[in-house]
């Protein structure tokens, strides 16, 4: 088709060829296929979490679009006349009535609602687990720092998407959730009351909030998520995927399967698997039965209610914070010349401080760690979590902090389920939210180091075969089988940085920052297990007899 420039114009012969050529010569498909058709993607089961996040988002878009065709985000009062008999004749908002209609009068509507809700829960979970994978394997290191930040932003956006959607049915449960948001917002100094009035269009609950959340939920938040996903994937292609260390894998290559056909088939097939599993869950497990809750009314509330899981940690923090300790009152009354102003720290501290701590550390972590290691190299090989013991321990501490708060959101259910005092559950969790992360840090660092020692042991002395041999003089030994070169390389090819001591600068003095850095570096790397070296392995072969396996046993035993 582009005969004017080509010396020998290509003339397609088949019909398919003609169509392909028509498109190709206009969009440059050949170049794209050449670039991506055989691009290599490393394979590991932990790389699937990001895929799950992407696929659940696609499913959210599909099921959500269906729901928008029937949902009406109006807070106007109406009387329910639909199919669900217990609520017939009850006054409610149009939004709640249309949610009931989707559930009871639109065929497949309940299924779509359940697919949408379950996908939302899985979406946030997949994003979170994907981030944990990236964190614990060190995939955020240079050159991927910005992509980590985009990922953090996506996590916040996924929470925003979840929360704005949660309130849309305008049922009693989500209404009480909004009421809590309103209460937290009002606690913000100076501007809190105004923020609340602007968000709700006046006094809580008003008649504006559902429509506003709807626009955020179906337009603004998903649009920004899409944009961020685009950037995220663009950078993944630009950087090429990271890979776990192992035989044949280096920092300058990518080992895996080509996009066409294997990777495309596996990843494409996985979309259908994720969809299928979500459909099965939505078929069998009821989620958010809004007809049981009734329309929003500021007076009733049901006991034992739970927010969606991803909001649980903030709700739990709100529960854990004591309003007063002894005579110390966390609600401050600050006298000003114009009068007294209230600063309810009993609300502000739990609502903001844990989130600020976690998100600040999360966003800044690539740079914090780069400052500690003073490492400016590119890293395309991942760490096995055990080989970065301090980072792993800090991650586990963060997860523990989060999980204790999350558990606190179910403190009443824990109390009723295990028949213990609600107050005691809260007291224990208050202790755990402080002590838990510290203990988790110490324990998980020890476990990492122990696993490294086990790796060393295996590399040096081989695998325990479980075969016990009795030597002529009566001693019993277990036969160890040496690991092969590939396994040996996997076990030994990691870095174990040494702590960096502060060194005097140009003026011969050690700056304060250097001292701090030296201390942090020691904290990170003082306890370390060095990888086995060939020399050590040779030495261990010299004075051991156990590593010999199979037919060499007899020889080894008799040579003793």
């Amino acid at each position: 088709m582009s005969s004017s420039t080509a010396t020998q114009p290509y003339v397609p012969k088949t019909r398919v060829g003609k169509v392909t050529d028509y498109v190709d010569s206009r969009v440059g498909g050949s170049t794209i296929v050449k670039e991506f058709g055989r691009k290599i993607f490393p394979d590991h089961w932990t790389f699937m979490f990001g895929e799950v996040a992407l696929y659940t988002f696609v499913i959210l878009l599909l099921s959500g679009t269906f729901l928008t065709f029937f949902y009406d985000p109006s807070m106007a009062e109406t009387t329910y006349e639909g199919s669900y008999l217990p609520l017939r004749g009850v006054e409610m908002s149009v939004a709640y009535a249309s949610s009931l209609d989707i559930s009871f009068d639109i065929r497949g509507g309940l299924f779509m609602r359940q697919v949408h809700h379950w996908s939302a829960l899985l979406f946030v979970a997949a994003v979170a687990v994907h981030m944990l994978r990236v964190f614990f394997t060190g995939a955020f290191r240079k050159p991927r720092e910005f992509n980590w930040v985009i990922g953090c932003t996506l996590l916040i956006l996924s929470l925003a998407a979840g929360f704005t959607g949660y309130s849309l049915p305008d049922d009693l449960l989500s209404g009480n959730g909004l009421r809590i948001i309103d209460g937290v917002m009002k606690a913000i100094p100076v501007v809190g009351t105004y923020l609340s009035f602007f968000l709700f269009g006046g006094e809580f609950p008003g008649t504006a909030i559902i429509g506003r959340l709807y626009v955020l939920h179906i337009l603004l938040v998903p649009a920004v998520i899409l944009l961020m996903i685009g950037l995220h994937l663009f950078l993944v292609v630009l950087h090429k995927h990271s890979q776990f260390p192992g035989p044949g894998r280096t920092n300058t290559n990518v080992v895996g399967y080509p996009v066409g056909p294997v990777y495309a088939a596996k990843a494409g097939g996985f979309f259908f698997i994720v969809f299928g599993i979500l459909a099965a869950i939505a078929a069998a497990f009821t989620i958010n039965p809004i007809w049981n809750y009734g329309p929003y009314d500021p007076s009733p509330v049901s006991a034992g209610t739970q927010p969606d899981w991803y909001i649980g940690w903030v709700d739990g923090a709100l529960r854990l914070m004591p309003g007063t300790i002894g005579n110390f009152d966390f609600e401050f009354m600050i006298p000003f010349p114009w009068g007294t102003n209230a600063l309810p720290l009993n609300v502000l501290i739990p609502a903001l401080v844990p989130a600020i701590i976690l998100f600040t550390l999360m966003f800044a972590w690539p740079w914090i760690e780069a400052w500690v290691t003073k490492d400016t190299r590119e890293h395309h090989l991942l760490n096995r979590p055990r080989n970065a013991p301090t980072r792993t321990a800090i991650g586990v501490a963060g997860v523990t902090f989060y999980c204790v708060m999350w558990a606190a959101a179910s403190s009443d259910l824990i109390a009723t389920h295990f028949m213990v005092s609600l107050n005691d559950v809260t007291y224990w969790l208050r202790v755990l939210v402080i002590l838990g992360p510290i203990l988790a840090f110490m324990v998980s660092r020890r476990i990492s180091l122990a696993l490294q020692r086990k790796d060393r042991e295996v590399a040096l002395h081989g695998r325990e075969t479980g075969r016990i041999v009795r030597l002529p003089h009566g001693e019993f030994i277990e036969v160890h089988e040496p690991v092969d070169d590939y396994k040996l390389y996997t076990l030994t090819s990691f870095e174990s940085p040494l702590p960096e001591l502060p060194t005097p600068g140009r003026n011969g003095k050690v700056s304060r920052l250097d001292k701090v850095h030296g201390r942090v570096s020691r904290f990170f790397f003082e306890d370390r297990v060095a990888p086995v070296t060939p020399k050590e392995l040779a030495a261990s072969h010299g004075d051991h007899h156990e590593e010999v396996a199979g037919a060499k046993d007899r020889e080894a035993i008799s040579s003793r």
Partner: protein
Amino acid sequence: MADSSHGTPGTTVAVGSTGRQLDEFDNPGLPPHRPRLADRDPRAEKRAERQVALLFAISVVGTLLFFVGYFFIPLDQTIERLRLQNLMLGLGTAFAMLGIGVGIVHWAKTLMPDHEVTEDRHDIRPESDRQDAEKIVNDILDESGIKRRPLIRNTLLGAALLAPLPAIAIFRDLGPLPGNALKETMWDAGVRLTRDPSGTPIRAADVTIGSAFHVIPEGLNEAEHKLEEKAKAVVLLMRLDPNELNPSPGREDWAYDGIVAYSKICTHVGCPVALYEQQTHHLLCPCHQSTFDVEHEARVIFGPAARPLPQLPIEVDDEGYLVASSDFQEPVGPSFWERG
């Protein structure tokens, strides 16, 4: 990673910070490919092919199941029928999707080549590109003249800083200013206490010791902003033995013969404090478990709330019905800056 030749050339490495081993194992390269069953045995290959086809066939069955559920299970206003239809639609979709998905993955894992391939990584930013880009940027800046003409630059900066302000200001009408709204409720002297939600007035004689009522002000159900008023005005009414109450000076006449009324809106973040423990005379907020002691003017005895629930002063009118003797003496609900 342990091989020093794998670092990016030209980057600096802090000495001593990496613990790099001088003595390390050579990378043995990719392990030899191990053929799968289907690679060696044509019968296994044929079997895998049939399995994939069977999985795709299961998908077809799933799609049909969906249509059976959609068209042949009419909804009849019972929740059982709805559940059955939901189950059919869901399982149909699940089989339709899983059949395709598992089929494709099985195909890829058993029949497509499983040789791992190695590809080189490229520099993210080759030095030659950096130099070219630097020159281009400099040319652009130069041609635009923005460096040479500070007047243009500074006025543009000023204009660009101010221009977004209207975009913020235009949101001013999202809501009215708070004014006194949070400090006033529907309660006033003489307003009857009525049952929630029916709105029937409560006679003091009907309130037996140990009982509790959910209360709204008379006329709330007809109010223009019903939900907003209700969100502030809901009250819990309880009768205790008058000797068990410990009113502070000035509040002795806020109760009527052991009947006390407290705001139902939690002073923590505003949930309804809906649970009354009859034996202990404690009020419990089910959201965050703040617990209030009715015997001591609803002071906080547990949980995250820091302030007692505001008490509504009540008395009895000529006909024996409970009425408020005034509005709350302090704002109800969660704290806010202007609360003072």
